C-alpha cells in the first residue's frame, strides 16, 4: 500500500488515464464498394456473436467477461477503460472466425498487475482458449511473442490478413516513460490454430 500511495499521488498530478504521446491523426481508409445494379444480394446481417471468456492457463489468465473496444481519434486501438478488463476489438472478427481477432488488456494499473501482466511470459506452443456467445470455444496456440517500440509498431504484421482463424493479444511492455505515463513498447502475442 505504501508503494501505491506514491504512485497514486503522482498520477493525480498528471492527466488521468494512461494516455501517451500524441499520435498523428491518420485518415481512416474509407472503403466504398462500388454500387452494383444487378448481381450479388446484400449479405444478411451478421449474428451478434462476441467473445465471452478468455483463458490462458500458462499464465493464469481467466477473464470471465470481455469488453468491446473501438478506435480512438488517431485510429489507434483503444485500451479497456478499466484496468481490470480484457477488451476485444469489436470491428474485427470474433475469435474463431476467419482473420486476426484482436484482444487487448492492460499490463498493470497504477498500483499493480492487470490481466495481461504476464503476457510476456507466454511461449511458443502455449494454449489460449476463447469462448463465444454462440457456445463455440476456439483453441489457439501461441506462435510467437514479440516486443515492439510503440513508435515503430508494425501495423501490417499485427493487424494484416491472416490465414484461417488467428488471434493477437496485445499489452504494454518495456520501460515506463513516467513523464508521458506510458510504456515505450507493446507486447504482441501471435497465435494460430494448430493440429494436434
Amino acid at each position, binding site marked *: 500500500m505504501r508503494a501505491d500511495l506514491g504512485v497514486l499521488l503522482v498520477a493525480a*498530478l498528471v492527466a488521468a488515464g494512461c494516455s501517451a504521446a500524441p499520435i498523428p491523426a491518420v485518415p481512416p481508409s474509407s472503403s466504398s464498394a462500388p454500387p452494383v445494379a444487378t448481381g450479388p444480394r446484400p449479405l444478411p446481417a451478421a449474428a451478434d456473436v462476441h467473445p465471452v471468456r478468455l483463458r490462458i492457463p500458462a499464465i493464469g489468465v481467466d477473464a470471465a467477461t470481455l469488453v468491446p473496444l473501438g478506435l480512438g481519434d488517431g485510429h489507434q486501438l483503444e485500451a479497456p477503460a478499466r484496468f481490470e478488463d480484457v477488451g476485444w476489438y469489436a470491428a474485427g472478427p470474433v475469435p474463431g472466425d476467419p482473420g486476426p481477432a484482436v484482444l487487448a488488456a492492460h499490463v498493470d494499473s497504477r498500483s499493480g498487475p492487470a490481466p495481461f501482466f504476464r503476457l510476456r511470459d507466454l511461449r511458443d506452443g502455449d494454449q489460449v482458449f476463447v469462448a463465444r456467445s454462440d457456445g463455440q470455444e476456439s483453441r489457439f496456440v501461441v506462435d510467437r511473442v514479440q516486443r515492439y517500440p510503440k513508435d515503430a509498431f508494425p*501495423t501490417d504484421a499485427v493487424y494484416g490478413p491472416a490465414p484461417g482463424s488467428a488471434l493477437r493479444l496485445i499489452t504494454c511492455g518495456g520501460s515506463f516513460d513516467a513523464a508521458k505515463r506510458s510504456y515505450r513498447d507493446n507486447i504482441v502475442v501471435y497465435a*494460430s490454430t494448430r493440429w494436434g
Partner: protein
Amino acid sequence: MRTLPQLLLRPGGLTAAALLLVALTPVTAAAATAPGPGVGWIRVGHLSPKVPPVDIYFAPFGQAEKVVIRKAGYGAVTPYSSLGPGKYTLSMRPADAAASTPPALSATIEVAERTAYSLLVFATGPDGSLKGDLVTDDLTPPAAGKGRVRVVEGSAAIAPVSVDGPQGVSLAKDAPYGRTSSYVDVPEGRWPLQLSGGSVKSAADVDVKAGTSTTLLVTEDSGALKANPISDGAALPEPPKFGVETGGGGTAPSSGMPLWPVFAAVALLAALVVGRRAARAR
C-alpha cells in the same frame, strides 16, 4: 498460386503400397527478421471421390510422424496449422490403419515464413492415381469493398466444370478435375452462382465478405455438383494504426520524474518494492 508436379499412388488405391516421395519447394521466403509471428501455415484437402477416408500424419522432416487428423473423407479440408519455416513430411493412410502401414501418399513440404499452403489431393495421376497439388493461398487483402474467390474443381465424374455468377463474373471456365483457379475479386455480397458440368447444373449461394479470401470446393455427390465455400483468411475491415496504451505503470520501475522532486523519494521506494514484487512474480 503455384502448382507443383508430383505423383503419389498407383492404381489400386490406398491399399497399394506404392510410394513416391516428392519435394514440394515453394519459392519465396520472407526475411527471418521481418516482424510477425515467424511461422507459415498448412492445411490439407481430400478431393479424391473414390478414396475412402484417411488419417493424416505429419512431422518435421526426419522425425517420427504422428496422426494429426483422423478420418478425413472426400471433400474435407483440415483447418490451418501454423508451423515454423522448414521441411516437413505429410502422409495419408486409410483411416484407422496402423501407423506401420505403408502410406498411401507421402510428401515432403518446404514451408516458408508468412506463407499459407493448401495441399490438395486429387486422383489426377496416371490411371487415376493420387496426386497432391501444393497451392499457395493468398494473404494479401483484396481491394476495398471486395472479397476474393477461387474455385477448386474436385469433381472427377462430372468435369470439366464452369462456375459463373451475375454481372459476367466467371470464377472457373471449363476447369478440369484437379484445377485450382486463380483468385477473382468480386464485390461483397451473397452471390448466386451457377455450377455447370456438361448437362449437370446446380445453383449455390455463396457469401463473400469484403476483405476475405474464399476457396469454393466443387465436389460431386450422387451425380450432382455441390459447392462448399471454405475460408482462406481475412483482413481486419478497419485495421487500427499504431500500438495500444495498455498500462498504468504500477509495476514499472520509475525513472526520475524531475518535475516532481517532492515525490522522487516515494517513487523510488515504490520502484524498489514493486520491482521486487515483479521479480518474484516472474
